[in-house]
C-alpha cells in the first residue's frame, strides 16, 4: 500500500516535468510570431506600427497553450 502512494507521488513529479515540455512548443510559437513580425517590419517599416496590436494578439494566442502546460504542471504539483 505504501508503494502505491510513493509511485503516485513519483508519477506526479514526472508528469509535472513532462508537462513542461509543452512550453517548448509555446516558445517556438512565440518566437515564430516575433521573428516573422520583425522580418516583415524590416521590409516595410512604415506598416510596422499599425501591426503591433496584431503582434501582441498572435503572441498571446501562441503563449496561451504554453500556459496550459504550465497549469497542468501546477495542478499536478499542488492540486492532484
Amino acid at each position, binding site marked *: 500500500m505504501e508503494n502505491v502512494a510513493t509511485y503516485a507521488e513519483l508519477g506526479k513529479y514526472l508528469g509535472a516535468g513532462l508537462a513542461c515540455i509543452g512550453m517548448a512548443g509555446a516558445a517556438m510559437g512565440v518566437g515564430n510570431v516575433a521573428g516573422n513580425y520583425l522580418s516583415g517590419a524590416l521590409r516595410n517599416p512604415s506598416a510596422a506600427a499599425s501591426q503591433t*496590436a496584431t503582434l*501582441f494578439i498572435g503572441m498571446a494566442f501562441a503563449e496561451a497553450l504554453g*500556459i496550459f502546460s504550465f*497549469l497542468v504542471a501546477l495542478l499536478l504539483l499542488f492540486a492532484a
Partner: protein
Amino acid sequence: MATEAQGEGSGLVFHPMDQFIVKPLFRDIAPGSCDAAAGLTDGCVRWYEPTNVTLWLALSALVVFALFVLGTRGRALIPSRVQSVAELTYGMVHKMVEDVSGKDGLRYFPYVFTLFCFILFANLLGLIPKSFSTTSHIAVTAVLALFVFLGVTILGFVLNGTHFLNLFWVKSAPLALRPVLAIIELISYFVRPVSHSIRLAGNIMAGHAVIKVFAAFAAILAIAPISILAIVGMYGLEVLVAVIQAYVFTILTCVYLKDALHPGH
C-alpha cells in the same frame, strides 16, 4: 506542499510559492490549523475577514483613483507629469479600442479602460518587495475574465440576436466542413475565459516564483553575486511582463468585443 525545504542544512531553502498564501490581515494563523476534516477551523480564513488580497486589491483601486481623479484635477493646458501620464494612458487605450473593436466599440471603452488600469496597477504594485501580487491568483483573474466573457456573450446576443451564432457557423467555408468548424469554434469560444484568466495569473505567478528561486540561491556565497544579478534582471523583465500582460488582457477583451459587435468572419 511540494515546496518543502530542500537541503535545509546547507542554507538552501526554496519557498517559491509561499508568497502567494492568502492570510488574514489582523490575525496570525498557525500553519496546519485549518483542517475541516479534523474539526480545526482556527487557521481557516473566514469569508468576512479582510486578507492581504483585500488590502492590495483596494490599494490598486486607490492608486488608479489617485492617478486619474486626483492627478488630473488641475486640468492644466500644459499638463503636469502626473496628468500627462493619465492622459497618455487614456489616449493609448482609447486608440486601441477604436483600432481593434471599431468605432462602435468605443461605447464600451470605460469598462475596457477600467480593466486595463486595474490590472496594470495590480501587477505593478505586486512587484513592490514584501507586497502581495493579487493578479497571481486565478480566483482574481478568473472573475475579471468571466465578466468579460459573460458581458461579451450577452452583448452579442442582445445586439445581433441569433445572427450572433454565425460566429460558429462559418459561411465562407465549404458546407461539408462547417459542422467540424462549428465544433472547433465552439470549443475555442468556451476556452476563451480559461486562457484569458490563466494567461495573466500564470505569467505573474511564474515570474514571481522564479525570482524567489533565485533569491534562495543567494544564500550560497559563491554564487550569490550571479544570483543577485539574475534577480535584478528578472525583476526588470517582470516590470515589462506586468505592463505587457495588462496590455494583452485588454487587447483580447477588445478582440472579443469585436466578435460580439460584428459576428461572422
